[in-house]
C-alpha cells in the first residue's frame, strides 16, 4: 500500500472521528436530570470518543481497502473466490486429521475442562442444531423465518409440561417433542404458503410473538411468566445424576444430536428433496412449473426446521431445568438467524462456526460484562460488512457422471 493511501486513510479517519464525536456529543457528554433541573457535563467522554473512533475508523478504512483489493484480485483471477479459511477446510489432506482431532477434543471435553466450559459448550451445541434447523428453512428453501424460536418454545414447554403433569421422562418426550414440532411447523406453514419474502418474514415474526404471548398469559396452562421449574434432567434407567454428571451426560446427548443433525442435513442437502428446496429458493414459479409441488416442499422445510427446534427445546428444558417465556423472545430468533447468515447460508460448517462465535463470544467476554453486548453488536456489523456472504460459503456437490449409461 502506498504512503499516499495511508495518509488518505488517516485523513478520512480523522474526519470520521470528528463527525462521530459531534454525533455522540450530546449523548456522551451531557446528562440531565429534569426533575432536579441539573445538568452534568462530562467533557472527558468526548476525548475518549474522539480517540476511540479515530482508531476504529482507521481500522475500518484499512479493512475496506483490503476488501476492495481482495475483490479486485479475485476479479483479476489471481486468487480463487473461495476464502482462505474455506480452502483450508476443503483441503482433503487437512480435513481428515482436523476432523479426527475435533472429534477427539469433543469426546474428552467434559473431563478436561470445567463444568462451566461444558455447560456453555452445550449451549453452543444447542444453537448449532437450531442454526442447522433454521438453515433448512432459510438457507436451503429460502423462506425467511423470524419466528423460529416459537418451535423451540414448543419443545421446551412440551417437555416441561409433560414432565410436570405426567412425570414423563426425557427420552419419552424427545420423540413426542419432535412430532409436536413438526405439527406446529405444518400449522404455521399452511397459512403462509402464499406469502413471499419479507411478508413471510413478518408473519412468522407475528407467529413467534403470538406463541410467546400465549405462554405468558395463559397461566392455567403454562404457569405464565413465573415459568415451570424443577424439570427433571435426563436420566438413564432410573439413575439420578448430580448436576455435574448430568451436565456431562447432556453434553454427550447433545454431541450425538449434533452429529445426527449434521448427518441428516448434509444428506438432505444433496438429495432430491434438497435440490427441490434450492430450486424453490431460486425461483418459485419455475420450480412449480418444473413439476415440484411447492406446497409440499415448503411444508417439509418448515416442518423439518421446526422438528429440530422442538427437539432442542426439550433438551434446553432438561438442561436448565426451568422454562419461562423470557427465553423465547424475538431477539432469540434474530440470534439464530444471525448464526445462519453470519456463518454462511446453506453451509453446514458455516452454521457451526456461526453458532460458536455468537454464543461463545458473549460468554467469553463476560469480563467486559456491561460492554459485551455493545461489542457483540459491532462485531455483527463488522462481519457482515467484511464478509457479507458469511464466514464460509456454501459448496455445491459435484456429481459423478456415468457417461456410458444411456
Amino acid at each position: 500500500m502506498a504512503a499516499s493511501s495511508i495518509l488518505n486513510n488517516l485523513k478520512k479517519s480523522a474526519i470520521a472521528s470528528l463527525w462521530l464525536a459531534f454525533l455522540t456529543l450530546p449523548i456522551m457528554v451531557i446528562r440531565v436530570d429534569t426533575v432536579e433541573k441539573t445538568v452534568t457535563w462530562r467533557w472527558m467522554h468526548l476525548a475518549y470518543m474522539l480517540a476511540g473512533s479515530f482508531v476504529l475508523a482507521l481500522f475500518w478504512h484499512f479493512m475496506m481497502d483490503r476488501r476492495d483489493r481482495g475483490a479486485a484480485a479475485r476479479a483479476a483471477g489471481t486468487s480463487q473466490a473461495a476464502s482462505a479459511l474455506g480452502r483450508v477446510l476443503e483441503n482433503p489432506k487437512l480435513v481428515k486429521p482436523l476432523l479426527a482431532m475435533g472429534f477427539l477434543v469433543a469426546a474428552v471435553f467434559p473431563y478436561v475442562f470445567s463444568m462451566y466450559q461444558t455447560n456453555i459448550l452445550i449451549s453452543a451445541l444447542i444453537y448449532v442444531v437450531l442454526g442447522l434447523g433454521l438453515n433448512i428453512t432459510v438457507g436451503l428453501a429460502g423462506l425467511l423465518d423470524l419466528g423460529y424460536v416459537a418451535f423451540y418454545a414448543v419443545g421446551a414447554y412440551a417437555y416441561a409440561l409433560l414432565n410436570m403433569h405426567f412425570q414423563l421422562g426425557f427420552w419419552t418426550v424427545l420423540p413426542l417433542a419432535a412430532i409436536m414440532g413438526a405439527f406446529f411447523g405444518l400449522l404455521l406453514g399452511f397459512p403462509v404458503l402464499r406469502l413471499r419474502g419479507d411478508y413471510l418474514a413478518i408473519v412468522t415474526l407475528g407467529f413467534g410473538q403470538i406463541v410467546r404471548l400465549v405462554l405468558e398469559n395463559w397461566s392455567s396452562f403454562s404457569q405464565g411468566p413465573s415459568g415451570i421449574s424443577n424439570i427433571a434432567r435426563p436420566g438413564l434407567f432410573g439413575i439420578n445424576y448430580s448436576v455435574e454428571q448430568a451436565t456431562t451426560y447432556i453434553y454427550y446427548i447433545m454431541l450425538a444430536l449434533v452429529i445426527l443433525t449434521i448427518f441428516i442435513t448434509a444428506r438432505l442437502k444433496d438429495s432430491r428433496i434438497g435440490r427441490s428446496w434450492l430450486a424453490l429458493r431460486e425461483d418459485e414459479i419455475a420450480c412449480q412449473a418444473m413439476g415440484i409441488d411447492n406446497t409440499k416442499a415448503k411444508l417439509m422445510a418448515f416442518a423439518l426446521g421446526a422438528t429440530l427446534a422442538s427437539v432442542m427445546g426439550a433438551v434446553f428444558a432438561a438442561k436448565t431445568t426451568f422454562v419461562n417465556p423470557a427465553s423465547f423472545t424475538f431477539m432469540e430468533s434474530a440470534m439464530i438467524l444471525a448464526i445462519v447468515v453470519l456463518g454462511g447460508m446453506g453451509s453446514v460448517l458455516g452454521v457451526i462456526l456461526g453458532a460458536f462465535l455468537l454464543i461463545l463470544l458473549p460468554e467469553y467476554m463476560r469480563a467486559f460484562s456491561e460492554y459485551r453486548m455493545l461489542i457483540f453488536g459491532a462485531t455483527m456489523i463488522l462481519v457482515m460488512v467484511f464478509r457479507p456472504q458469511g464466514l464460509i460459503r456454501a459448496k455445491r456437490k459435484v456429481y459423478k457422471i456415468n457417461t456410458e449409461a444411456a
Partner: protein
Amino acid sequence: MKARWMMTVLGVAMAGMLAVGCGGEKKEEKKPEAANATAAAPAAKKVVLGVAGAQSGDLASYGLPSLNAAKLVAKEINAKGGINGAQVEVMPMDDQCKPELATNAATKLVSEKVTIVLGHICSGATKAALPIYKDAKVIVMSPSATSTELTQSGNYPNFFRTISYDLIQGKAAAEFAVNELKVKKVAVIHDKGDYGKGFAESAKKALEDGKVAKVALFEGITPGGVDYSAIVQKIKASGADCVLYGGYHPEASKIVTQMHKKGLKIAFVSDDGVKDDTFIKTAGADAEGVYATGPQILADNEVYKKALADHEKEFGSKPGAFFPQAYAASQALLNAVAKAGSTDYDKVVAALQKEYVETPVGKIKFDAKGDAEGVSFSVYQVKSGKYELVK
C-alpha cells in the same frame, strides 16, 4: 496458502482486539473501580462475592444497582481491612434475566469456586440457576426474586433473600386496600411479568378469600407500550374504586398519569417495584397519593443514609431499584462469612440464621426457609413528593 489462512485468523483476532480495546477504553472512563476490583486479585487471601443478575439487556436497570451495592459494601469492608484479613472481591456475572444465561453464569461462578452469590435479580433466572448452586453448595441471596416458591417450597435450602415474597406482599396490599381504604371493587392489574403477576395473583387470591371486596377486573398490560388508555378506560368502566397494580414503576407511572388524564381518580396501591423514588420523579404530581408496599426503610436508618451517600459519592447518581435490598444482602453474606470464620457452607448458613445484621432494610437475620426476619413490612404513600409511612 497457510499464510493466507494465518492472515485471516490474525485479521479476525485484530478485529476482536480493536473492538475490545475500544470497549476497554470506554470502560475506564466510566468505572475505573470496577476494573480495579476485579483486576487487583492476586492477594493471598480473598473472599469472592459473585454478583449475578441482569447487567445488560433490557432489564439491566434492575441488575446494575445490585452490582453497585455489592461494590460499595466490598469497598467499605476492604477499607476496614477485609474479612479476617481477606480482601473482598466482587465478581459480576451477567444473566440478562434469561434462564439459560443464568445457568451459564451459575456454572461459571461455581467453576471459579465462588461460595457466596448475590443474585439473581429475576425469579425465573434464579429458579434456573439454583439447582446448580445447590449442588455445588453455594449460598445465594437475592435482593429481588420474590417468587413465593423459592423459599416456601423448601426445595432450595441454599437460597436466601432480603425481600419479602409475592404472597406476603400481595396479601398485605390487598388487606390494606380492604381494611384501611375500605374499597369494595378492586381492579387488579399487572405487567405480565414474573414479579408483577405473582404479586397480582396473590392479591387477587387474598381479595377473593377475604370476601369483602370484589375483584372487578384482573388483567395484564404490555410493558413498554406507548399508551395505556384502553386499560384505563376499562378500569373506569368496571366501576372499580381501587387499582391494585403488580409490576414496576415505569408502567405504574404511565398508568397513574393516564388515569388522572382521563379523570379517573381512585386509589392506586402497588408493590415494592413502585416504591422507588424514580416513580415519583417520572409520575410527578400524579404520583401524589399513590400507595406502595415495601420493606420498612426508616428515614433515620443510619446504614441506609450512609449507603445512599456512598453511592452518590462513588457513582455520582442516586441508586436504582433494589439497591437497599442488595446492600443488605451483601452485608448479610459477608457478615456471615466473617462470623463463620470461613466460607464453609454449613457454618455460613448457620451464621446467616443466627446473626443479626444492621442493614438498610432493618436489623435482619434469616429464617429456616431463607426469608429475612426483621424486614418489617409497611405501606407507604406519596405525600408531597416523598414516600411516607402509612402503616
